[in-house]
């Protein structure tokens, strides 16, 4: 017993180092699975507050760019609005019906990162604004990510520029779907994998969200095909997608709450049983 105590006292620095290092390592490993530590993230009041203070300064420098983005979106929406005079066919009627099932909240981005391999954004809406985990986040140009952690006033968003992110997406022209991932290299390119090699795709085709997940509505823009190649297995395509969004400059985002999500998930889980 004496010897054990002596050993601990003699090596106390090393043992403490080992303890602290393994704690951090355990947290790191845990963070590489989808549901992460609930305690240490920038949705906390401290981090959110600090970012909020400095964001109000930073915002002024980006006003011009953000205005341009909003004007472009307005232009697009006006285009759609004026072209709505056409007789509405039944398929688009169906669309309008389904759009009513989503509730949109706007939020400001307090922190954005894109230089790491696992990027998160911090936004200024949280539980008080009934934001919950797994809501979708989009910008005027395309998708941003999925809500990961929420506190009372802030939330973190798992960016599509995160090696843990997996989002259902499809080729707009042919409806062949795959899974959108990121290899951690360029913030302008993401990868769409597992697309059937029978899909007649070509460079420049538009990629948008598929309707398979209950998180995003179908048809939100993601990007265009930059290049593609067949997978090593030879059965699927790996597609490089050039994002519509400039992920390095995001000011205002929309949070999408699919009001039918619970129903869809219940239905799907009952099918699994």
């Amino acid at each position, binding site marked *: 017993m004496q010897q054990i105590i002596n050993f601990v006292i003699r090596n*106390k*620095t*090393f043992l*403490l*180092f080992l303890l*602290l*290092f393994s*704690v*951090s*390592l*355990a*947290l*790191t490993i*845990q*963070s*590489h699975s989808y549901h*992460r*530590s609930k305690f*240490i*993230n*920038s949705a*906390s009041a*401290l*981090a959110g507050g*600090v*970012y909020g203070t*400095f964001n109000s300064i930073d915002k002024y420098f980006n006003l011009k760019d953000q205005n341009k983005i909003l004007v472009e979106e307005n232009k697009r929406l006006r285009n759609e609005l004026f072209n709505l005079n056409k007789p509405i066919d039944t398929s688009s009627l169906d669309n309008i019906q389904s759009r009513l099932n989503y509730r949109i909240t706007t939020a400001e981005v307090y*922190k954005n*990162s*894109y*230089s*790491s*391999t*696992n*990027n*998160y954004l*911090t936004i200024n809406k949280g539980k008080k604004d009934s934001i919950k985990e797994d809501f979708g986040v989009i910008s005027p140009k395309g998708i941003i990510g999925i809500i990961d952690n929420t506190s009372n006033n802030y939330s*973190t968003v798992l960016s599509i520029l995160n*090696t843990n992110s997996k989002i259902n997406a499809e080729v707009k022209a042919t409806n062949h779907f795959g899974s959108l991932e990121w290899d*951690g*290299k*360029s*913030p302008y390119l993401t990868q769409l994998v597992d697309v059937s090699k029978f899909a007649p795709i070509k460079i420049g085709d538009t990629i948008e969200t598929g309707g398979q997940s209950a998180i995003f509505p179908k048809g939100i823009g993601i990007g265009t095909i930059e290049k593609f190649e067949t997978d090593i297995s030879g059965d699927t395509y790996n597609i490089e997608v050039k994002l519509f969004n400039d992920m*390095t400059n995001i000011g205002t985002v929309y949070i999408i709450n699919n009001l039918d999500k619970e129903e869809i998930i219940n239905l799907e889980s009952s099918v699994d049983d």
Partner: protein
Amino acid sequence: MTSFSGELSLRFIALLLVQVVVCNNINFLGYINPYIYIVFIFLFPIRDSRIVLLLISFLLGMLVDMFSDSVGVHAAAAVTLAYARPLLLKMSFGMLYEHQSVKFSNTDIGSLITYVGLGTLLHHFILFSLEVFNISNILLILKKTLFSGIFTIILSILIIVLFSRNKK
């Protein structure tokens, strides 16, 4: 033991704020960020207990982690740097460290660069290995370590030199 004095806590908070508000957003060439908060670990008083240094480094790393949503990565790297510090000091200052008479304010600049350089590369290598967490991306890890490291070394030396000359 002169544990956590006023000047130290001020330095702690200042470096943390500059790190998360300014340095994390530089993104030079898309991915190069300096991590200057390790200056705190470099400049921690040499005579103070190593246990205290380890604990404070862990806290500092965790706070940086909290702000950048990278759970545990910075903490692990900071704790490693804090643990390896005596070795680094011995390698770069030699006899001066043996006699416990290293003063960062008036050392010879060569030793200082060796000390900060080795420490930064060690810290950044651990940091990016854990962040990328994929051994097949070793080239990406090395690239990030090298470029961010150079950036950090330059800024750290500047900070150390500028702020210590004032006090003389």
